[in-house]
């Protein structure tokens, strides 16, 4: 069985400065990798390369199946309604029945009452839930989220945890970068840590990490 995500020998430069150095990372189906590291270590760059938003200078990225991407921006249009946004992305992803899918996801994220309201009228929490629906609506095989828990409200965090849990249980793959160690450790099956563009740790999440989320940071002198 091929891995869902295979990242091999990826380098990325900004000029001569290597932002990523020889990153190799694989994730099988049903695995969830929490990507740790300081700001500027290269987590976002790595995720953007995996999602095909950036080209690696060297190395290769193979993703089996569709990608669900959520970056720092929520990736939905302010001038369209929640429903219209989901239909547009459903059509782009080629889902069988975009309208039904959109309605289904609006119900799941508790936005069905405001389905026809424009996104620009939404509160912060509603936008975040819509963004999550947008990233999940085509049942992606590989979910790539950059800092998903940052600045979410409680309801959105609970929704996201449920969706991540379901996705992993269904044999899909999740890679997320995060600073919210406690939330991440509960979901993660594997933990990767990036320091100055290099992958310094990659392995299963141990019971020790769950009991003490800061363990890895202290081990690598980044507390």
């Amino acid at each position, binding site marked *: 069985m091929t891995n869902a995500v295979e990242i091999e020998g990826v380098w990325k430069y900004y000029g001569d400065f290597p932002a990523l150095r020889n990153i190799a990372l694989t994730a099988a189906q049903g695995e969830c990798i929490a990507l740790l590291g300081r700001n500027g270590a290269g987590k976002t760059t790595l995720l953007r390369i995996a999602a095909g938003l950036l080209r690696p200078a060297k190395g290769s990225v193979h993703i089996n199946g569709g990608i669900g991407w959520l970056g720092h*921006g929520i990736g939905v249009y302010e001038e369209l309604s929640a429903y219209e946004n989901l239909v547009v992305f459903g059509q782009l992803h080629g889902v069988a029945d975009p309208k039904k899918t959109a309605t289904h996801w609006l119900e799941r994220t508790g936005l069905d009452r405001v389905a026809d309201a424009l996104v620009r009228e939404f509160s912060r929490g509603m936008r975040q839930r819509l963004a999550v629906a947008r990233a999940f609506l085509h049942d992606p095989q590989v979910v790539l989220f950059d800092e998903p828990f940052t600045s979410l409200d409680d309801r959105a965090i609970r929704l996201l945890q449920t969706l991540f849990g379901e996705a992993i249980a269904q044999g899909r793959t999740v890679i997320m970068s995060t600073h919210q160690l406690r939330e991440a450790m509960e979901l993660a099956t594997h933990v990767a840590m990036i320091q100055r563009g290099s992958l310094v740790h990659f392995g299963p999440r141990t019971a020790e990490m769950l009991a003490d989320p800061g363990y890895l940071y202290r081990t690598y002198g980044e507390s």
Partner: protein
Amino acid sequence: MKTLRQALVITRKDLRAELRTKETLNAAVSFSISVLLLFSFALDPTPDQTAEIGGGVLWMIFLFAGTLVFNRSFARELPNDCLDALVASPASSAAIFLGKCFAGFSMMLIVEVLSLPVFVLFFGGRIMDHPGQLSVTLLLATWSVTIMGTTFSALTVNLRLRELMLPVLVYPMLLPAMLAAFRLLTMLVAGQAIGSEDLQWLRVLFGFDLIFTCLALALADSILVN
């Protein structure tokens, strides 16, 4: 086929958002009408003068209004990082690019259709004498502006100075197509049909459109993903 279908999804999305706010269209239409008004005072042309300069004036105004439209083309994707969501979707760069082209093309045509009666009102001229030839000329010339405008809108979308860079890059590149548009519209404003002698300029427009459409689609991936 799939590319075209995805392109049309993006086109419909852009047009729906635009028709809801009408921000770009309002700006472009009122710009072109006010400039027409200013020109009508600045030049105050007799019918003979209109026949001579009207075509050039009209197309210059459409070109400037087009710049307003294409300044917004990819900039529309910037809030909430929507461009990332599009590029991460299965839609190819060529599909995204083509969708943006169709949307900009439609908006520019709307501006032209609304401005033409105003041009006739202020300048007179017999531009409506050959509606078929006028449509072909406008469609081909508008597509030239569209393909260059969309390409450079995509190129400059992440730049701080994008509103300044777009015209600087686009106008020199558009010169051949604009020469053709000036020549053809001058004929049409004078009420003359496009004769066999000026067929060459339709060919210039068509060739320009074809060459740069192919080139832009081939390079779309290099423009959108770095």
